[in-house]
Every structure is written in C-alpha cells, then in structure tokens.
C-alpha cells in the first residue's frame, strides 16, 4: 500500500459514521469481499448468497475497525468476512450427494459443532470431535468434507484466466481503475487502446464480477461471442505484456 492510499483510507475511517466515507470504503474493499465469497463457492450455496454475506460482513468490518490498532484494515476485513462466510455455511448445514453413512455422521458432527463451540470457547479440533462422536479422525475429516466440500473453482479460474487477482482498491472510471490496480497496471496502456466493447467486457468480467452470460445480455451479443472476445483480448494483453 502506498503512503498516499493509506492516508486516504485513514481519513475515511476518521470521517465515519459519515455515509459517504462508509460507501467509499465499501467500494474500495468490495473486490476483497467478492473474492473471498468465491473461495467458498461449491458448498451448496449460490455465489450470489455468498457475495451478499461477504458484503454484509465487510460492512460490519468497516463499522468495527479500530484504526488505532496496529493492523491493516484489509487483514481485519479478511478475518471478519471469512468468519462470517464460515458461520453462514455452518448454519446452513451441508451439501447433498454424499453416501448415507457419511451423511449421518456429517449430521451428527454438524449438530455437535455449536455445542463444542460453546463448551470450548473456540472451534473444536478434529480429535475433539472424533472423541465425542466415537469415530476415527479420518471419518470425521470425511464428514467435515461432506459438510463443507472445498471448492477448487477459484483456483481453476485463476489458472485459466491469467491475471485474475484484483487487489482491493477504489472503484472509479474503468480506465482509471485498470491503471490503479496492481496486476492490471502493467497492461493499462494496452487496455486503453482496446475497442470500447472489449474494454467494457474486461471491466464487467473482472471488476463487476459478471458472468459471461450476464455480459452477453447487457451487450446484446451471444455468450459465445463474449467468450471469444474475452479470450482473444486476454491473449493479446498477455502476449503484448510478455513480449
């Protein structure tokens, strides 16, 4: 974080509970919330719901953050958002399509978790759960996996879509955002030279986090066309920036 950006953010926190400052902080850190929400996709909840939980958690983090403490807001927000997402998934139960004995153990484990939380004052270890349900640690691990199957989607997306990681910075005009975001900064001059439609597609896909289908609808073209334009644009940016 540059000194300038930090000063700006400290000023915003100092202005709270001013709604404009709150809104600005929300906009700045929304990419972080959306990014973390995607990390929990595939556990039986829609991405939209997860994004909503993450956004509310971000708001909570903004209201609770104490700028006087020696911790960055992004760190504090990450912990708050991940905590809320976990709590949400825990409360919602678990995904289906797992073998019945495992389902039963998963139900028992899920039911036991709030009790153990209360008893221990923290989340339990696998050993503690295993002792309580009279199962092996491996069985408990499997049950936990069934209850909260971890999603490989975010990383797959990372690997296939190139510079996908967008840092938590401010929202603004499209080109200005590309210019200011680490990772995109190096290709910002190239993006500025792209046709308006390609630039718009990049913006919607990576900053608004829209799906290709949603972009197709907005631009009035087919999803296949969006897919081709996006792939071609990313390839061009990658080639130019690496060459």
């Amino acid at each position, binding site marked *: 974080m540059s000194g300038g950006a930090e000063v700006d953010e400290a000023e915003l926190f100092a202005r709270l509970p001013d709604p404009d400052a709150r809104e600005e902080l929300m906009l700045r850190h929304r990419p972080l919330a959306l990014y*973390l929400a995607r990390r929990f996709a595939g556990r039986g909840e829609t991405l939209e719901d997860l994004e909503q939980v993450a956004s509310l958690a971000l708001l909570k983090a903004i209201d609770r953050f104490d700028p006087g403490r020696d911790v960055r807001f992004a760190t504090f927000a990450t912990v708050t958002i991940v905590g809320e997402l*976990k709590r949400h998934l825990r409360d919602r139960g678990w995904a289906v399509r797992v073998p019945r004995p495992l389902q039963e153990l998963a139900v028992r484990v899920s039911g036991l978790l709030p009790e153990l939380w209360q008893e221990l004052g923290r*989340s339990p270890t*696998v*050993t503690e759960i295993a002792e309580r349900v009279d199962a092996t640690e491996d069985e408990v691990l499997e049950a936990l996996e069934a209850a909260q199957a971890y999603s490989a989607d975010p*990383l797959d997306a*990372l*690997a296939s879509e190139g510079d996908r990681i967008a840092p*938590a910075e401010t929202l603004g005009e499209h080109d200005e955002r590309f210019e200011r975001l680490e990772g995109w900064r190096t290709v910002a001059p190239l993006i500025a030279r792209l046709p308006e439609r390609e630039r718009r597609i990049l913006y919607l896909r990576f900053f608004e986090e829209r799906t290709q289908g949603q972009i197709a609808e907005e631009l009035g073209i087919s999803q296949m066309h969006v897919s081709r334009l996006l792939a071609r644009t990313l390839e061009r940016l990658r080639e130019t920036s690496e060459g």
Partner: protein
Amino acid sequence: MSPTSGTVIATVPARAEHLHVIRAVIGSVAARHELTIDAIDDLRIAVDEACAQLIRAGGETITVSIAADATGVEVVCRTDARVSAWPPEGLDRTLAAQVLRGLTDEVTWGRADGRPSVRIRKRGVAADR
C-alpha cells in the same frame, strides 16, 4: 522448523487441477496436530493462494512440506521454477498477499533450495493454552 521424519511431503504437477491433493494432505496432517477446524480451513485457503502464486512463477512441479510441532503447523510450498525475481514486484498489494496475511499467523515469501517458496505458519490450540 526444519524437515524431520514427521514431515509430510507432497509433490504435484504445477497445475491448478492437482491442488486438491495438496488440500487433502493439509487437512489430514493439520487435523492430527490440534488445529481447530476453522484453522484447518484457513490453512487450506492460504496454501491454495500460495500455490496459485507459485504456479504463476512457472515450473513443472509444486512441492509442499508440512511439518508440525506442539505449537502448530508449518507449510512450505515451493516450485521448481528458476526465476530471478521472487517474490513478484508489487506482491504486497495483491489480494493473494492480503488473504495470506489475514488467514495465517506468519507468512514468508522467500526461497527454499534456491527456488521460490512461501512459508506459512498456523498455530494450534496448544499454543494458546
């Protein structure tokens, strides 16, 4: 924490689709060393992030060493890529770096055996007693 006979080492091709193996191994080892289920989840996400960054550095394989002691679990992720610039410039400002800082007790971007690595520490419940 240097590798001992209790260190678990897993090597996978440096592609995202193979990282589920790493996640499974992390869960299995961490579960046996008094990490809470929340901490295990955090560690898995953190290792995912670290490996994603290492995959971007190029190379054929990703190797993850997981060692545990009474205080917690330490994971060292490394690639066999030969790159001079590591960690990448501007890393501190990326979401990956923020996520890693937020979810772990200690994270060090460095080199292991001369190759790019990320060392992550997560405390177990014994450390808080």
